[in-house]
């Protein structure tokens, strides 16, 4: 590294320009990673937080928007309950609703209808649990919209009034809309179109002749692997693991694929730009390398020196870029779905450095092909 370090200092202008590009790529990496995590949270955090291993949709449901499109009944639920390895299974209703708070603010809600007291009931950061026909537990992020315990939201058009009785522990959103958990019976009342204006009463709920829901949420016993195909055959469903079911939520696949594509391109650009820089740099040094080889420097020493130089440049400026990206990320407006998570950022950092090094290696290997004989004679 004797030569590598001195060259970094000597050609600091050129290396800083290259480092600037690497740092900007790293900033973009962090931003994309944050946006990606943010969108995932915004899209499916309501699902992620559920203690569920498998979601069973009605057989033949179109995969996009399958949650609100699928319809399942008690027979399918019971079939899943008897599948080997299943700890619990419950019906779950999913629907979207526009609503207005009692202070006149318009909000969108994803209604998750669940059996009060079942394993699907979310852990709460405040308030009481589900039970009252008009009681809903909403995502803690809804507080930012001015919703508080006791706030009454009125569903648009049908005029059904629901009362906020609790907040979830952390973010629970689905399809970029805050989740409101409510009793399955109430959900069925609303979904069947039988809900009237005002708060739903226990009386009306028992009169409802509607026993279907959207999906069967299945929880496997710890360590058990479910035979999904057998369960599907018995129940007449199409089941997916929880993370595979994310794709069935609105826009999820399109968003994550777009971001993944941008990231893949960015990694490729990083490798190519670093490779191009070190190719030109090595060609510039061709004569001095031939002199060093003539004097007797081993190829291994020169290669190690060149790679160490690339590694110092990449690690230093990637760290700088990541730090800048984290700073920028912290200053993101709340309206932007943005979440800085350690694991994806660490992976992005490692990939930036790793792919940059691969690009540099391809360039630096040229050193081994430079002929020491070029040192003799006058050609420069």
């Amino acid at each position: 590294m004797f030569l590598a370090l001195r060259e970094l200092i000597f050609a600091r202008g050129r290396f800083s320009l290259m480092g600037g590009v690497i740092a900007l790529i790293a900033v973009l990496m962090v931003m994309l990673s944050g946006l990606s995590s943010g969108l995932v949270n915004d899209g499916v955090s309501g699902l992620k937080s559920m203690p569920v291993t498998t979601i069973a949709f009605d057989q033949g449901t179109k995969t996009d928007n399958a949650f609100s499109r699928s319809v399942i009944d008690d027979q399918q639920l019971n079939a899943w309950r008897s599948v080997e390895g299943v700890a619990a299974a419950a019906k779950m209703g999913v629907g979207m609703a526009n609503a207005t708070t009692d202070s006149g603010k318009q909000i969108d809600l994803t209604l998750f209808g669940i059996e009060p007291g079942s394993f699907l009931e979310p852990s709460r950061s405040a308030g009481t649990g589900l039970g009252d026909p008009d009681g809903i537990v909403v995502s803690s992020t809804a507080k930012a919209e001015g919703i508080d315990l006791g706030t009454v939201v009125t569903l648009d058009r049908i005029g059904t009034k629901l009362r906020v009785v609790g907040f979830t522990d952390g973010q629970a959103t689905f399809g970029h809309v805050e989740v409101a958990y409510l009793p399955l019976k109430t959900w069925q009342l609303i979904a069947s179109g039988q809900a009237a204006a005002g708060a739903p009463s226990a009386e009306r709920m028992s009169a409802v002749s509607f026993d279907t829901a959207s999906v069967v949420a299945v929880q496997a016993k710890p360590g058990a692997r479910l035979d999904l195909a057998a369960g599907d055959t018995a129940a007449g469903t199409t089941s997916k693991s929880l993370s595979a079911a994310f794709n069935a939520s609105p826009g999820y696949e399109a968003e994550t694929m777009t971001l993944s594509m941008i990231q893949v391109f960015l990694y490729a650009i990083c490798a190519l730009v670093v490779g191009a820089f070190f190719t030109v740099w090595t060609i510039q040094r061709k004569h001095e390398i031939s002199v060093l080889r003539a004097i007797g420097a081993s190829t291994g020493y020169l290669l190690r020196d060149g790679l160490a130089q690339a590694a110092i440049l990449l690690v230093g400026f990637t760290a700088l870029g990541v730090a800048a990206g984290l700073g920028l990320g912290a200053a993101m407006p709340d309206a932007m779905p943005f979440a800085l998570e350690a694991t994806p950022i660490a992976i992005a950092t490692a990939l930036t450095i790793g792919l940059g090094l691969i690009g540099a290696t391809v360039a630096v290997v040229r050193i081994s092909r430079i002929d020491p004989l070029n040192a003799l004679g006058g050609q420069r």
Partner: protein
Amino acid sequence: MTSSTFPAAGASRADAPQAAGLSIRHAVMELGDGDTRVTALDDVSLDVAPGEFLAIVGPSGSGKSSLLAVAGALASPDSGTVTVNGQDLSQLSQGKRAAFRLSNIGFVFQSGNLIPALTAADQLRLINRLAGGPKTFDPVPLLESVGMAHRATNRPGQLSGGERQRVGIARALVTGAKLLLVDEPTASLDRARSREVVELLARQSHEHGVATIMVTHDHDVLGYCDRIVEMVDGRLGAPAPVR
């Protein structure tokens, strides 16, 4: 290398290579292919004893550079043997040759060919590190001996042509090499600087017992050389008279 009875300078006219310095025996080397094939070395035999300063003169393309390449283990002759300090170079693998060059052969190239990023002192330190020399290596005495101690912290860009050449000579001596190969050291220097540089080479080779071969076009500096041979069409001619 273990022999203690090596012959004196110029005494080895037999085919046995001398133990110290450089011995080339019947070296033949052809370059190029087909119609462009030229004989760069045509049965060349040459001995240079320790402490001897030899100049090779000759027109362009006469094989001077090929002779340097062969003597410096940068190229192998098609036939014949090259022995440096008792080591037959043809016995060395590619990787061993580099290590051998590093510790046994010093090179001085045209216009110094120093590394642009390194100060004069660091040029010398790099070679010491490459050769695995002592960590306590101090480049200043060596720079002092070529009159460049005051320029130790300057990079090549801040040095004149003559100063670069002096640093280049100091660099070639770092590992205590006993064979110094010098390629057109005065190509980019004026007369006064040329004389100074060649005088320095002569002094270093005499003081340190280094066998030195200098390839040059510059007849002005031949007065400092112990022996001059002329090369024409790959053959070593009769020694030209010292002027």
